[in-house]
């Protein structure tokens, strides 16, 4: 049994808590959050050890692993504290706000010998896994061009009747904007095609924010020279269950796209999958958790991977190095954008 502590019970932390409760051999025994309301949420799920300060949680010897769902600017400090107490760490992306901070964490992890996995959940989308399989099997030949798109609503949290947290609007606390919105696209491109460099980057402002809200980026893989156009934005009103992500690969022998593996009608998909689960439960079979939203399942799959890496003493699917590479490339993207458009700085 892996005994888990969850640090930070915002919308992601609460989702992680709910998912952990459905996993075998995993038990959430403690949570930490500065908000009384968040701790109340955890208490209602039966968790007894509740802390305002995560350092108190980290003192618990029977906690093997922690899930850190804190704001970006608190990652370095909390990961440092967790690794010093020998806890395995799952942390939301981005690992940290700069590559220097990421490398510092990398050194800590290597020294302490704990497992650390970063939440690159897009790798675990069914549609992405299927595109990856097609690519790996050579069905489309060699990929020359690719397009990755993610445009959504960055500020209005779906149906949640609460305002976004203040740190979201503070450039120092959120770090580079692409660490939030563009992170997954950069990671996917490099996961498929290896280390890459930006050939072009435009960072734009639809809204009047202290940071950008959309970008067009061209990356080129250093290994196989695949080019990728990344379109990313925060400006589009979107209400659950809508989701606007796709990845298209154009190869020498054909093409493939995540759109081929996502439901054409999300509402019908929800009805179909939820009906299946109700029947599964009725007949005593195991339900497919969160299958009604094809994208939320990825959170479950990545946590399973993290806990399996602890049980089997293996490398998790997403390593510290993957996260460092992603943050470094994002820093390079900013350099290219600002060199070309210095007035945008």
């Amino acid at each position, binding site marked *: 049994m892996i005994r888990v502590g969850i640090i930070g019970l915002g*919308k992601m932390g*609460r*989702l992680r808590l*709910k*998912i952990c409760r*459905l996993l075998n051999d995993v038990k959430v025994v403690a949570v930490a959050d500065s908000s009384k309301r968040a701790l109340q949420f955890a208490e209602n799920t039966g968790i007894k050890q509740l802390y305002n300060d995560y350092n108190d949680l980290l003192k618990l010897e029977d906690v093997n692993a922690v899930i850190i769902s804190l704001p970006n600017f608190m990652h370095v400090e909390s990961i440092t504290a967790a690794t010093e107490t020998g806890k395995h760490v799952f942390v939301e992306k981005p690992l940290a706000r700069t590559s220097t901070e990421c490398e510092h964490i990398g050194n800590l992890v290597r020294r302490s010998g704990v497992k650390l996995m970063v939440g690159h959940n897009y790798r675990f989308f069914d549609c992405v896994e299927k595109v990856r399989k097609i690519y790996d099997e050579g069905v489309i030949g060699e990929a020359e061009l690719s397009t990755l798109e993610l445009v959504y*609503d960055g*500020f*209005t*949290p*779906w*149906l*949640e*009747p*609460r*305002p*976004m947290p203040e740190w979201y*609007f503070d450039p120092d606390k959120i770090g580079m904007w692409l660490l939030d919105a563009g992170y997954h696209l950069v990671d996917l491109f490099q996961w498929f095609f290896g280390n890459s460099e930006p050939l072009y980057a435009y960072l734009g402002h*639809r*809204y*009047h*924010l202290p940071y950008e809200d959309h970008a067009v980026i061209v990356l080129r893989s250093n290994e196989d020279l695949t080019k990728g156009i990344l379109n990313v934005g925060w*400006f589009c*009103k979107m*209400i*659950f269950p809508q989701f606007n992500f796709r990845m298209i690969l154009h190869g020498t022998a054909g093409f493939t796209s995540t759109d081929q593996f996502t439901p054409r009608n999300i509402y019908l998909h929800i009805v179909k999958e*939820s009906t299946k*689960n*109700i029947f*599964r*439960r009725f007949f005593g079979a195991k*339900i497919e*958790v*969160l299958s*009604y*939203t094809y994208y*939320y399942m990825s959170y479950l799959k990545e946590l399973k991977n993290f806990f399996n890496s602890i049980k089997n003493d293996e490398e998790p699917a997403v390593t510290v190095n993957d996260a460092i590479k992603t943050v470094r490339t994002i820093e390079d993207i900013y350099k290219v954008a600002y060199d070309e458009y210095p007035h945008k700085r």
Partner: protein
Amino acid sequence: MDNLVSLIHVESFNGEGIKKAVYEAIDLIDLSLSSVGSVVIKPNLRWYWDYSTGETTDPRVVSAIIDYVRERWNDGADIKIVESDASAMRTKHAFKILGYEKLAHEKSVELFNLSKDEIYEKEISVDGYKFMLPLPSIIFSSDLFINVPKLKVGPYASGQCLHMTCALKNLFGCIAKPRKVEYHPHLREVIVGVNKLVKPHLTVVDGVFALGKNPVKLGLIMAGGDNLSVEFIAAEVMGYNPDGIDLIRLASKEGVGNIKDVKVVGESLDNARKHFPKRSRLGFKLSWGLQLSLLLLYAKLSGDIIPPVLESS
């Protein structure tokens, strides 16, 4: 004096086109004002959605109103743009994100958060329902209060479905309390209650991008001196029979305004009406309330989880 509501289409969707339409619309209603020293302008800012979604007032419309006030009434008027915090929106962020901070800087006007003002607790009774409303003092102390709503359908809130959101509903945003969802169980009564207490001198409707089933480039500016009359004509523009709208009926019964002898000036109502996309009330219930209820029921029946962001709403 005639009860006039003007309808003007913009000739072009840029700042100049919008300004021209706003000027024509206000000119046509023959508003007689004695002294305009302090001006409060209340747009509709909902969450952090762009004006082109049809959800929030276009800052270019507000910009044109500011110019109009200064050119026609008082060049040195003290002008404030106001909005209150809402359950899922903080005014300071909405002002910044949606371009109002930039506008305020360019036009040298003040941005004002109604939730931070001195509050008057006002008791009001609507249709036998008595309640208290926390209202900011600035609303009552300005010489000219200008309501600048958006033209849109809905909303669906806590089991109640309004046909439309326009002149009457925008004043709901004058309630200082951020958690306005608490008023949703008596939404109609509360909207009418606010309208009994708060009387705009001028209402200018931003129908440049309206919201029906989807956003639509309607290109319409409306203006009127009586808030309820503007709502009445807006309902017609949206293709509704205003007499069949509970909110308008209730507001009229409670003496909020005068919908008798409303006269449309500018363009014809038929010309404005034909562009508007319709959306069924059932459609709202299906897309919001029923969807959430079904998800919660599904979670109970299957043992599956639903994302916490949805669960808390």
